[in-house]
């Protein structure tokens, strides 16, 4: 048992290394600049400009601007995590023809995919920092690196990463059934964008969607990120909840997502083997 865990851990790190070596933006400067720097910055700036124009840049609107920018900054985690997960499945199958071999490896396919997606944590973190720097210097957000609650921030982000991976696993059936390697990750990330309180509070969603969004861990995670960075000076989605209560909800929602991911994986793995998705070539 102990040995199995050690081996599993080694395998996980190997998958991280593989992701790092073959598809990390970090190792490809051009892609890194486009995807991890220019894109999030322009997303943040577009939102910020629109918002400040609408609100005539009034002082009362500052907490919500901070809400927007921090939400958009941390969005990179979801963007890169989900996309890399999708790439891990679709490129390995269609482009490298390796999916069936990694799938069959005793390590376990989910561990492999999570490892590959983990390789994006570094570039995602870098892009968060860059967007926050832009927010601080170009938009005048009162972010002070010395007053950030780092333990809360890191804990929330780790939990969120677990949730993002579980969520990706939940969607792996869709990916395995997919024929080409483009777009799926993006579409999923966009879908989550609306549900996670990245640019507007989830309470603005229509009733049932708001309820669904309140089950998702992502809103609680972003709330904690905002509070950890700009406590009291940022618009809050859950003003009635203390930090600890938001954290408790985050933990519960992550656990729920993990359970959901586990069972949907069992189902989709079986369906993939029944339908022959694992080594499906685009010609089918």
């Amino acid at each position, binding site marked *: 048992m102990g040995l199995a865990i050690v081996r599993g851990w080694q395998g996980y790190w190997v998958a991280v290394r593989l992701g790092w070596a073959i598809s990390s933006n970090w190792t490809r400067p051009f892609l890194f600049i486009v995807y991890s720097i220019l894109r999030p910055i322009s997303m943040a700036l577009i939102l910020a400009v629109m918002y400040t124009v609408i609100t005539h840049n009034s002082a009362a609107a500052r907490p919500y601007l901070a809400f927007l920018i921090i939400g958009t900054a941390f969005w990179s985690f979801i963007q890169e995590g989900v996309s890399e997960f999708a790439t891990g499945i679709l490129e390995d199958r269609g482009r490298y023809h390796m999916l069936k071999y990694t799938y069959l*490896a*005793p390590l376990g396919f989910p561990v492999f995919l999570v490892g590959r997606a983990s390789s994006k944590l570094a570039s995602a973190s870098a892009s968060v920092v860059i967007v926050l720097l832009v927010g601080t210097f170009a938009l005048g957000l009162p972010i002070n690196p010395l007053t950030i609650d780092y333990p809360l921030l890191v804990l929330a982000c780790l939990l969120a990463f677990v949730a993002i991976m579980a969520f990706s696993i939940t969607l792996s059936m869709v990916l395995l059934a997919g024929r080409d390697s483009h777009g799926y990750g993006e579409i999923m990330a966009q879908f989550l964008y609306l549900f996670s309180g990245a640019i507007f509070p989830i309470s603005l969603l229509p009733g049932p969607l708001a309820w669904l969004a309140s089950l998702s861990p992502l809103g609680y995670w972003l709330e904690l990120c905002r509070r950890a960075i700009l406590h009291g000076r940022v618009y809050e989605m859950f003003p009635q909840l203390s930090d600890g209560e938001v954290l408790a909800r985050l933990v519960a929602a992550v656990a729920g997502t993990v359970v959901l991911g586990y069972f949907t994986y069992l189902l989709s793995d079986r369906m993939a083997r029944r339908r022959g998705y694992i*080594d499906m070539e685009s010609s089918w």
Partner: protein
Amino acid sequence: MAGTSPSSTSSRPAVETRQLGRVYKSRKDVVVALQGIDLSVKQGELFGVLGPNGAGKTTLIKILVTLLLPTSGQAWVDGLDVVKDYRALRHRISMVSGGENAGYGLLRVREQLWLFSQLYGMSSAAARRRIDELLERLGLAEVGNRTIAGLSSGMRQKMSLVRGLMTDPRVIFLDEPTVALDVGAARDVRNEVRRWMGEDPTRTVILTTHYMQEADELCDRVAIVNRGEVIAHGTPQALKQQVDEDVIVDLQLEPGRPLLDALRAIEGVGAASAREEDGIDRFSLLLADDAVLPRVLTTVEGSGRRVTGLVRRQPTLEDAFVKLVGRSLHEEDSSGDGA
């Protein structure tokens, strides 16, 4: 079940299937890729699965390696049920497919192989030793530090074989491992497979191939699969005996009108196949006895084609195949259904 030994001997079969079947259903059609497959492969055997395009060879391999679920029947590999015990089974097997250019192009050969060994939980040092040893034996030692994108497709295929062998599986499944390789590379692959089996007499290889001669020379036993069914199995020697009684004649003709169907229609012609080489049509005929030959020649002359050569020869596995299947491996299936 002629040719299979009872599995009551000390060792269990490496592979066993019982009425194994697979149907592919799509919105448009239903394809019966395999049906009623009963096979038993002993430990230490090099077992060949031979069949034309679309016969179901790859489907069989995919089921046995747990990539695909069967739609009927059962199968066991190394004593484990491929459906129920698939997780445990994955520790004990590996698979290599030929002709697919697999590999992470940006990685170096050794690097990819090592990464892979770690997904199998091999110790890092042992994996490195094993990889170097296998690369050396397959003549890839020099390219070990090259990126995979820079390899020829033959080198890639050999690298895939290294990946399959390095984890020391109990059973390895090779789906057309020599397809599209040049003569030398194909020989390297075959030699290495044989040698690898020699390291441990209980290691088992299941190999599919299009190449009759490969099956004949390499395999201990062969199953001939056609349209999803095993139509014969046994040692290559035993299969060849099926055509022992027949007279086998190779006929060379100058090009002209199609003749194959007319030849097949002659009484006493058991089977006929044709192939074109360098502008000459070569026909292989299985005749019931010598007395059929004059009738054949009459038919040929009647069609206005000229005979440029005629030899009688020893039976090959190909002849047995043609007799059983009714056509050669490389001929298209003209009967419409199936592939």
